[in-house]
């Protein structure tokens, strides 16, 4: 064989066309590098080739291949479709699902190079991150999610048959409004096992049916105890207050919900919990995947498995992906998680392999350790965006990106203060602030259920802590509160409390009788 022919033989593909054997070859080549050289640890892969319309479908149901039916997904679909049709927005090249097997969707119109990039990015980068990051390990159950969604879809469809579409829709509307406050933020006692969920639902129901005895409903109750008997602390403890997982509280303690409505709240809560880690690891997740695809592509090219032309094609889309406009650029719309993630991963690689004195001072643990993949794998497993940035954003990168911090106080009429820049005095402050912007515990409003007036009118009392005079958006809060009141069945009151423990604002809502038609107490 001639030299040229041998070289040709080594190529995974030529030109832009691909078929299923090409995909298989690409996957195997990527796998060899990912597992063998980078030491990644991934779920088995499942690659699905889809059309643009199916990609839109996937978009509108938060990327999941099966989901219960709700009008809001139709709305999102219509919205994305309108943008796509007018050519205002490109579709993503891929979507990847945190499940086992890990499902990656590839668009049919991608070129062979793009498919390689996407396989390296999603099927190995994201996949490794899903399997190893502590948040995903703690909060999601990759084996169980697809089965659980299947159960959820079936369950909600059955509810629609039994109780009517409107009733189910209203319950879902209300649950969706509270979705962002339907997650446990702190680790609980047991790991989530979604596979058990379906069984447990059936057991709960069977238990209720067994235990039902009509006699108890008609037994005369004893003399009501004096309201003063019930003391506040005991009541709070009994209800598990204060509680920041609103959906959980309603599911467990709302007096007027039907069992199926509780189950729906539970489903929405589980879905929210499943996506919770993704919200906390945008930068790391994309940074990992981008770093991994860059490594794989580079090595494929070094080995001669990708031609120079195709490698250029890859570099072009790669640079597009990690492009970060500066603040005064028209295209600027906040930080690009791909860009900042990838830059930080590369920076860590630099610190590990070629540290400067500054790096040694700032990162004594990792500087000069020599094996970047080992260090990075450790980081990918143990951090989330907030802790990752607050530990590993280096002065070098702050200078390179020329980060600066603005302090904007509406009371200050002169203007906005530049409070830190990329200099010796500013590094720590810039880093702390940027990390904070990725801490959803800081950026999401914190709302707790404080008390329930059990002896009186059963009014639910909530509190919003409003640091820095951040109050809630008025009209939306009223709507969400309305949903909350509908689910709770009695009055609801939300207080906003500033840093000086002063109540700055109050919202209240009365329940509408739309969720509780014909129940025992009405």
């Amino acid at each position: 064989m001639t030299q040229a022919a041998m070289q040709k033989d080594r190529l995974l593909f030529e030109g832009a066309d691909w078929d299923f054997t090409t995909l298989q070859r690409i996957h195997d080549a990527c796998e060899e590098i990912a597992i063998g050289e980078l030491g990644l640890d991934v779920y088995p892969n499942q690659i699905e080739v889809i059309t643009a319309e199916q990609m839109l479908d996937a978009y509108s149901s938060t990327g999941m291949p099966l989901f219960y039916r709700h009008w809001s997904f139709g709305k999102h679909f219509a919205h994305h479709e309108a943008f796509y049709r007018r050519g205002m927005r490109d579709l993503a090249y891929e979507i990847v699902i945190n499940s086992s097997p890990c499902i990656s969707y590839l668009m049919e119109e991608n070129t062979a190079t793009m498919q390689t990039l996407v396989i390296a990015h999603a099927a190995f980068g994201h996949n490794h991150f899903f399997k190893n990051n502590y948040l995903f390990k703690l909060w999601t159950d990759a084996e169980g999610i697809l089965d659980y969604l299947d159960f959820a879809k079936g369950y909600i469809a059955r509810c629609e048959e039994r109780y009517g579409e409107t009733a189910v829709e209203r319950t879902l509307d209300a649950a969706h409004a509270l979705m962002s406050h339907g997650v446990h933020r702190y680790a609980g006692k047991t790991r989530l096992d979604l596979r058990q969920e379906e069984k447990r639902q059936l057991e709960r129901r069977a238990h209720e049916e067994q235990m039902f005895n009509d006699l108890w409903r008609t037994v005369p109750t004893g003399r009501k105890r004096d309201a003063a008997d019930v003391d506040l602390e005991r009541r709070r403890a009994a209800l598990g207050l204060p509680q920041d997982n609103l959906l959980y509280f309603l599911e467990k303690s709302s007096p007027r919900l039907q069992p199926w409505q509780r189950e729906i709240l539970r489903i929405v809560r589980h879905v929210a919990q499943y996506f919770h880690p993704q919200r906390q690891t945008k930068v790391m997740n994309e940074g990992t995947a981008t770093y991994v695809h860059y490594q794989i592509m580079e090595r494929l090219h070094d080995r001669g498995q990708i031609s120079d032309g195709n490698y250029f094609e890859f570099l072009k889309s790669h640079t597009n992906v990690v492009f970060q406009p500066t603040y005064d650029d028209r295209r600027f719309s906040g930080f690009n998680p791909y860009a900042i993630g990838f830059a930080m991963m590369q920076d860590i690689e630099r610190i590990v392999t070629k540290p400067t004195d500054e790096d040694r001072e700032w990162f004594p643990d990792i500087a000069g350790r020599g094996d970047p993949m080992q260090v990075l794998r450790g980081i990918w497993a143990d951090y989330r965006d907030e802790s990752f940035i607050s530990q590993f954003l280096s002065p070098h990168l702050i200078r390179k990106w020329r980060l600066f911090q603005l302090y904007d106080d509406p009371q200050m009429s002169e203007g906005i203060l530049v409070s830190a820049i990329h200099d010796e005095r500013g590094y720590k402050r810039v880093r702390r602030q940027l990390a904070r912007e990725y801490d959803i515990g800081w950026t999401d409003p914190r709302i707790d259920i404080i008390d329930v007036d059990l002896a009186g009118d059963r009014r639910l009392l909530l509190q919003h802590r409003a640091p820095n005079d951040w109050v809630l958006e008025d009209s939306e809060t009223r709507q969400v509160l309305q949903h909350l009141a509908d689910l709770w069945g009695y009055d609801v009151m939300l207080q906003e409390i500033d840093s000086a423990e002063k109540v700055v604002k109050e919202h209240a809502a009365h329940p509408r009788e739309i969720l509780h038609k014909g129940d025992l107490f009405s």
Partner: protein
Amino acid sequence: MHIIDRRLNPRGKSLENRQRFLRRAKDAVQQAVRRSLQSRSIRDVLDGGEVSLPIGGMGEPSFRRAEGGITDHVLPGNRAFVEGDIIPRPPGQGAGRPKEAGQGDGEDGFRFVLTREEFLSVFLDDLELPELAKRRLSETEEMSPVRAGYSISGSPSNLSIDRTTRLAMMRRIALKRPKPAEIEALQRQIDESENEETRLSLEAELKSLTDRIRRIPYVDPLDVRYRRFDNEPKPVAKAVMFCLMDVSGSMSEHMKDLAKRFYLLLYLFLSQRYEKVEIVFIRHTEKAEEVDEETFFYGQATGGTLVSSALAAMRSIIASRFDPTEWNIYAAQASDGDNSYRDEAPAGHLLRHEILPLCQYFAYIEVDEEGGDSSVSNSPLWRLYESIRSGSATLAMRKVCRKNEIFPVFHDLFQKRSTQTKAVP
């Protein structure tokens, strides 16, 4: 690793969600569609297309922070700032916090594309031809397949797997077809048996069983059943709509546009809702002619006005093609109300004695200049029809001056109503 080709999966997975969304947004969509009817050219109305909805009742609220308060943020690309600089606020804007994607599109409404079918079904939602049941005919025009049990022949797509396997199982049990498990057990016995004699007898038994299995197939052609369908005739009502339009010189461009818009709605409504409705287009000046749809909507003509010519044309078309005992007959007439005085008596006579008795419903639309008053009219034709109407309930009359009145009037004329009440202004 698996590779799965999903491209061949059934399309329209999101259709159900889309329908739910449209149902939810029904009022808003309806308003948007009606609004868009006013601004569009006549041809475009037929194509469905993009509508813009206010986000109103379809918002998905969540607890969010309001703008304002003290904010701190980090930005990339510092060029000239040093610590302690104060940047004046950009005019007319609060804190320069960049909006996050997906959150900022609340106010400017929600644009999306309706398909032609969705568009039409929304705007024709609650309309119908009045009194259609009156002359519903038992004539068999349309066949629809209905289930009619099972048959032993049919096309493979109608194969009833359920029934076939059930029959096959019955036959296997009845003929005592040995089960694979029995054979396996026997085989094991043979393998284990030490005694030559028993082994031989067992082998003989095994042979008879396997022969039996061969003789009695698992599924026999006898078992195969197909779902059977019979064609059942469906009664269809036959109906015809006469569209009479005045195109004489007294009709200004604006009036013609109004009239055409009205007929366009009518045409859309009929072609969409009633597949079997015939539509006859008649335009008239001092003489009437039957024209095709294209000429009716887009053709040019001018001249004097003789309403009776159109009515006479309608009468002769009915006589030649639409036997009133078989057909439900409807008519819609649009005019500016001008008619020559010598025509008043013949037109009145025709309408009262020849047309109205044959018609299920006769709608008269009077169009006027933009500044006109749509509640009163004093035109010759209006007065004539007014006098006729007192004696007949099948005649409905409306007056329209502005584009945006077209739809309400149309809707009013053809909305669903209980069978007894008639469209009386």
